[in-house]
């Protein structure tokens, strides 16, 4: 007579008490994952200030002046409506092949808001030109004592 060996397998279940802990851990895990989302934005290459000075000497760059007014900008001294700016810039950039010639000097009044500035500079970059910032230098002059 053959005796078959019966092996009893024990059923191992995770304790039901731990379900809350597991759920909590999962929430924390997904919260951490959600908070590490990559930032979205635009890269901007600015020529170094020394290079810009040299370029100014070589050729006349396009000048764009911004004020707080969002509807009108000044292009080479002429007031231009923002809607007409892409076409006007495209015309000015025509025939300019070298990167040094395709530089637009952006001059902003101190009260120009960032969203206006970024919209304009993005437009310039989309047209294949590079921008350079010209700031009004602030100097502290001590008068007498």
């Amino acid at each position, binding site marked *: 007579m053959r005796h078959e060996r019966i092996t009893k397998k024990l059923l191992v279940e995770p304790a039901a008490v731990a379900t809350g802990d597991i759920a909590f851990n999962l929430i924390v895990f997904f919260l951490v994952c959600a908070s590490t989302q990559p930032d979205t*934005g635009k890269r901007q290459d600015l020529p170094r200030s020394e290079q810009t000075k040299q370029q100014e000497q070589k050729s006349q760059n396009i000048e764009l002046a911004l004020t707080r007014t969002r509807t009108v900008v000044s292009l080479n001294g002429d007031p231009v409506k923002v809607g007409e700016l892409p076409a006007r810039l495209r015309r000015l950039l025509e025939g300019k092949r070298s990167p040094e010639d395709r530089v637009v000097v952006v001059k902003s009044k101190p009260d120009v808001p960032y969203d206006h500035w970024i919209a304009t500079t993005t437009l310039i970059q989309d047209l294949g030109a590079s921008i350079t910032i010209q700031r009004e230098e602030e100097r502290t002059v001590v008068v007498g004592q």
Partner: protein
Amino acid sequence: MKFKRRAMKADVPSVAMGDIAFNLLIFFVILAKAQDDSHLQWQPAQAKQLQGFASSKASVLIDRENKLHLNGKEIGQAQLAKGVGDILGSAPQGDRTVLLKVHKDATAMYYEAVIEAISEAGGDLVHVLEEKQ
């Protein structure tokens, strides 16, 4: 008659080791976020066709009150170029990304000086913006 007290054995259940390790992992992941500026108040400007930038060496932020922050810590405008330069060190080109987060209503008086300082420190400037719908 005296009853002898049996010493109770109090062990940390080994089943919990996995949970403890997992919690520690999350804790260190949060700590590793050195550039955490999530506590600062700002609203990004909007633009189209944006790219994702996962890694950066430094993050510069101008908040609602025009206060300047480098990697979440407040800093003066005069110290920014040096601060960014120290963080970037001798990192190779392409690994010198500096994220610039500017509140949409901040004025040129503040952000132009910051852009100039990042450029001076040799950082690759990336404007952090929100996708325009």
